[in-house]
């Protein structure tokens, strides 16, 4: 399993999760966990996903997701889980 963290931040609106999930589904990316909050109208979502079945490498996925984010007016990031676990877990 290759765990990848996808974060989506921006002004809340209809269909954000639908758009992101459609992309993930089209690219064989399985969602393991979702958490989401709304702070002062700002949508803030984190997904833990498994990208091991995707044919695209991390560079392509993060560029395409960033592009999708621009389309829907959100900031979407896609990062290897290690950067977070290394920083926050001993």
């Amino acid at each position: 399993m290759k765990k990848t963290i996808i974060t989506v931040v921006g002004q809340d609106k209809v269909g954000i999760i639908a758009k992101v999930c459609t992309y993930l589904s089209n690219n064989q990316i399985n969602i393991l966990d979702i958490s989401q909050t709304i702070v002062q109208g700002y949508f803030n979502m984190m997904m833990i996903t498994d990208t091991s079945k995707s044919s695209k490498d991390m560079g392509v996925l993060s560029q395409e997701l960033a592009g999708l984010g621009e389309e829907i007016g959100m900031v979407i990031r896609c990062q290897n889980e290690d950067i977070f676990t290394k920083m926050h877990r001993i």
Partner: protein
Amino acid sequence: MINIFEVNETNQMIEQENLDVRTITLGVSLLDCIDSDLEKMRERVYEKIVDKAKNLVSVGREIEMEYGIPIVNKRISVTPIALIGGNACKSPEDFVSLAKVLDEAVKAVQVNFIGGYSALVSKGMTPAEEYLIRSIPQALAETDRVCSSVNVGSTKTGINMDAVKLMGEVILDTAQKTKDRDSCGCTKLVVFCNAPDDNPFMAGAFHGVTEADSIINVGVSGPGVVKRALENAHGVDFETLCETIKRTAFKVTRVGQLVAQEASRRLGVPFGILDLSLAPTPAVGDSVADILREIGLEHPGAPGTTAALALLNDQVKKGGVMASSAVGGLSGAFIPVSEDQGMIDAVDAGALTLEKLEAMTCVCSVGLDMVAIPGDTPASAISGMIADEAAIGMINQKTTAVRVIPVIGKGVGETVEFGGLLGHGPIMPVNGFSCEEFVERGGRIPAPIHSFKN
């Protein structure tokens, strides 16, 4: 499992607090390029650097993309050139031709700086080392990306005062030869005492002779992250303050460790060390001076500055050491003047003087760094400043360095613009009393005694 708050904290550090990996530095040994024929050696040096570093930039980009952490610089350090050029170089000009081949190689692999145009002369100079030192002004004026360093002293050997005197002249000559560009040649020249073999930061990086054929050293950064953490620590006692810095340094360093391991694995080059330095940039919020302000000083330079810097430096090390498997290089807080907006403001406000900076160098890594001084400063005064810094390093068993820029044609009250990461800054006054007789003596200051510490 990781939670949303932790993810947001990390991303906020990267986006808003300038957390980045300052440099991945590939150390390359050139000892196997030694030849008595200069042309052959130039070819071998070029081929080895290009071969070892051909994937450095692309691997750096891959890691940036995958982890979402900026890697600001990819750099190369090589064996001190004075050591490898001894047989082939019979004049300073011969050494300049080696500097040019380093410049060509580093441009071919799109790396922004190469360090190691260096001589280690803490006890004495060979003829080759003296040629190299004398070639530095021309080499730095005629290349773009070559950085030079000279180690003039150590705790074990004392201070080579002949080299100190020579370096005063070399710095001034380098300034002269690049006077059309605000004497920027001097930004690429460092004079060390106790220079480390594995420093990844420019301009003082070189690949020491104790190192393997090639290694990856990584320098992290994160003054902005420490500053932000301390914004919530006003009014707390020193124990809590120190704990906050330590925790933050740990987090920052873990990112560096991750990047270092990944770079090492992907390039097939062993991991050397992680340098824990807090390295500022001219960007707003990326300042060591701002941390000192958060600790409780109106400006760096105020009474209490040395103590504040000492505790900062120590806590960064304590937090960082646990986060990494191998720590080395300079590892501490950098206090370059022109590269840190907060330091520039302190000089402008009249709070920070050269003398206070010197005191600060007793408790942090490196020394008088990126300090612009008047262009009419005599060489003997620059040598005197080098001797003072080297003495601090020698006695306190730490690395110290001098990177001053005598800006030809400019004086106190004027400013200088180096651009990019090197920043800009005011020209600082130098004590005008003479030390010429002291510098002229020549010879060596003997190594200090290691007992009776008082």
